[in-house]
Structure formats: structure tokens, C-alpha cells
């Protein structure tokens, strides 16, 4: 009797597994149009959020700035097999030391960040961190987690209230991802930097410097406020990048970097 129960149980489990694995061979994501719905919503959300930021902060169209930033992003993308056209970079006139990713691959950099970094490698490190958030799909995950998929869909279809839009915009620019996602993005950023032959120590130095500086001037540091535990992060970035690369280069020439900074500060 016991043997019969075991045999029948195994057969039943096998029937379940065969049905499950068999059905998994069907491309449900395509049939249910999961990817299409998500990417359409993401595109609409990206446009809505970007417009909201552009209403309060003017976008810099100075060629010295946009060309410099594009060169950095293009170099990172090319070195890491990322589709450059997917990353849409925008430099906005704002004193906050901040950069953040929006849905649909929009990367926003404030002029405050460009003025506060010590060199182009530090800026490249922050850009890599934000590209990592985009590539790892952290932006939509954060939005879905914080405000819910249904609200996002209503926002994308233009049915949500202005208050929800304001809250969501604030969420994207001024609150952190959770620790696990931040670490993932940091580690990915270091990989991007090493592949692109950029010294990751500068990125760690940037975090370390900001975490130590308690000057009043730094009270307005958006990026560091939204990315807590900077000292700890600087440590694991240094530890992770240790002995990973030794031949480094500069993406922009000294004059190109200076032109970018001057353009952003003007």
C-alpha cells in the first residue's frame, strides 16, 4: 500500500512538473504583451517626469556641455555594450549636487554636480552609477514598489492627479533606492568604469569626500543625501575595484573637460 502511495504521488508530481515546464515553453510575455505594455507605460512616464523637471529647471543646450557629456556617456556605453541611444542625457540648471535616472532611460544631471566634482572621472563615476540603475531596471522597480503599478498606469494614461505626479517626481529625484539596489548599481558602475578604462578610485573618493564634509555648503547635496552610507560605499567600491584594472585613460581632453565645466557654470 505504501509503495503504491509513493508511486502515485511521484506520478502526480511528474504530471504537474511536465505540464508546468511544457506551458513554460510558450512565450507568455509576448502573448500577454507584458513587455509592450511595460515599455509603453515606461516611455510615457519618462516623458511626463522629464517635462515636470524641465518646467522648474532650465535644460542646458550649450554645445560645449552637451557634447562633453555625450562623449562621456558614449564612451561608457561603447565600452560596455550598452545601446547609446537608450540613454537620453539631460543637463539641467540647478545648484543641487544631484543626478538621477528617470523611466525610459532618461538621465538627468544637475549643473551643481558638474561644478562640485573634482575631475571628469568623478562625474563619470556618478554617471555610471545612474546608467547602472537604468540598465538594471531599478527605476521602474522603485516606482512600482513605492507608488504601485496601477497608479503608474493611470499616471501614464494621464488620469492621475497633479499631487501624485508631484510626489512621484520628488520620489525619483530626492529619495534613495534601497541598500541592495544601491550596492548593485555601485558594483555595476565599477565594472562599467573598469571596462571603459576609467579609474574607479575617483568615484570612491567622491563619495568619501562628500561623506566627510560637514560644511554648510554640503547640506544642499542632493545626491549624497539620497545616497546614504557614502563612507561604507566608498570602502566597498575601493575593495571591489582593487587590482581589477591598471591602465586608465581620460575620456575628455583637459580643454574639453574645462569647456564642459565652464559651460555648465555659465
Amino acid at each position: 500500500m505504501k509503495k503504491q502511495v509513493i508511486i502515485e504521488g511521484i506520478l502526480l508530481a511528474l504530471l504537474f512538473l511536465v505540464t508546468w515546464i511544457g506551458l513554460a515553453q510558450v512565450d507568455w510575455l509576448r502573448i500577454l504583451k507584458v513587455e509592450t505594455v511595460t515599455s509603453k507605460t515606461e516611455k510615457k512616464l519618462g516623458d511626463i517626469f522629464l517635462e515636470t523637471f524641465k518646467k522648474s529647471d532650465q535644460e542646458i543646450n550649450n554645445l560645449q556641455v552637451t557634447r562633453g557629456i555625450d562623449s562621456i556617456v558614449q564612451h561608457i556605453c561603447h565600452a560596455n555594450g550598452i545601446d547609446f541611444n537608450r540613454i537620453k542625457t539631460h543637463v539641467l540648471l540647478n545648484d543641487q549636487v544631484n543626478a538621477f535616472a528617470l523611466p525610459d532611460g532618461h538621465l538627468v544631471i544637475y549643473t551643481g554636480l558638474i561644478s562640485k566634482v573634482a575631475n571628469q572621472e568623478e562625474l563619470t563615476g556618478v554617471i555610471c552609477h545612474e546608467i547602472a540603475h537604468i540598465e538594471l531596471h531599478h527605476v521602474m522597480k522603485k516606482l512600482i514598489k513605492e507608488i504601485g503599478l496601477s497608479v503608474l498606469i493611470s499616471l501614464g494614461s494621464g488620469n492621475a492627479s497633479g499631487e501624485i505626479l508631484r510626489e512621484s517626481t520628488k520620489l525619483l529625484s530626492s529619495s534613495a533606492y534601497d541598500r541592495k539596489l544601491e550596492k548593485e548599481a555601485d558594483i555595476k558602475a565599477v565594472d562599467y568604469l573598469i571596462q571603459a578604462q576609467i579609474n574607479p578610485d575617483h568615484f570612491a573618493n567622491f563619495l568619501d569626500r562628500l561623506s566627510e564634509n560637514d560644511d554648510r555648503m554640503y547640506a544642499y547635496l542632493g545626491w549624497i543625501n539620497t545616497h546614504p552610507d557614502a563612507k561604507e560605499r566608498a570602502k566597498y567600491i575601493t575593495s571591489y575595484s582593487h587590482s581589477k584594472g591598471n591602465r586608465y585613460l581620460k575620456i575628455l581632453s583637459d580643454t574639453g573637460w574645462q569647456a564642459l565645466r565652464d559651460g555648465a557654470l555659465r
Partner: protein
Amino acid sequence: MIRTEQFIYTPREHEEEAASNSYVMSMVAIIAGLPLPIFNLIATLIFYLGNRKSTFFVRWHCTQALLSQFTLVILNSTAFWWTISIIFWEKSWDNYFFAYLLTVIIVNIAEFIATIYTAVQTRKGIHVAWWFYGTLTNLVCKPRI
């Protein structure tokens, strides 16, 4: 998957009714408990506990109904928490998830149909034993001497 067998004695009218009710109970629980699968098990368990000192025919069918609910609870809970983990813990949708959901829905429908059929047959005094669950019930539920 479902076989009609000769029971060791002919059940009386009230036994047929109570045995049939054990399936009706789990069916009502399926309808009420869809969002939270644990309700199915709790309802069937309460009915089982209420009838554990009843006659062999009633106990046998309460046990079969209860055992079948255990599998459903595990499968449905997995589906429930898998969905929750995708929504709240940043797991991604994939074909295995949708295939699992569909398989679980098929199992639930099959169980639902089997439950209705068994409830009707048991009410007529016909002893219906399910594949695996019937054999397992024979193993754990013995007549009192």
C-alpha cells in the same frame, strides 16, 4: 484519476449526507478562499475535526477531502507569494511564472470538478476514491475495531 470502489459496508442515508458535505465544504471554501488559499484548508480541517468520531464512511471521505486540500494550499500559496514577490520585491515576470499560474489554475479547476462529482456520487452512497489521495486515505484512515 477517479475510481468508483465497493466500500466495506453499505453506508446509511445520514452517512452519505455527511460524507458528501465534506466535499461541499471544501468547494465552498475554494470559492470563498480564492484570494487567501489557507481558508480552504481551515474550513476542511474544521469539518474533519467535527466528524473525526463519526462512522468510517464519513471519516474516510473527510480525510480524502482534507488531504486533497493540502496540495492545493501549497500550490496556491506558492502562486500567491510568487506574485507578491514580483510586485513588492523586484522579481521579474517570466514565462515560468505565467506557466505556473496556468498550471495551478488547471489543477484548481480539475479539483473543483472532481469535488463536485465526488460530492454528488457520495450523496448517492457511491464510494469514490481519487488517484493518490484515495490510496493515501486508505493508509491513514482505518475502520475502528
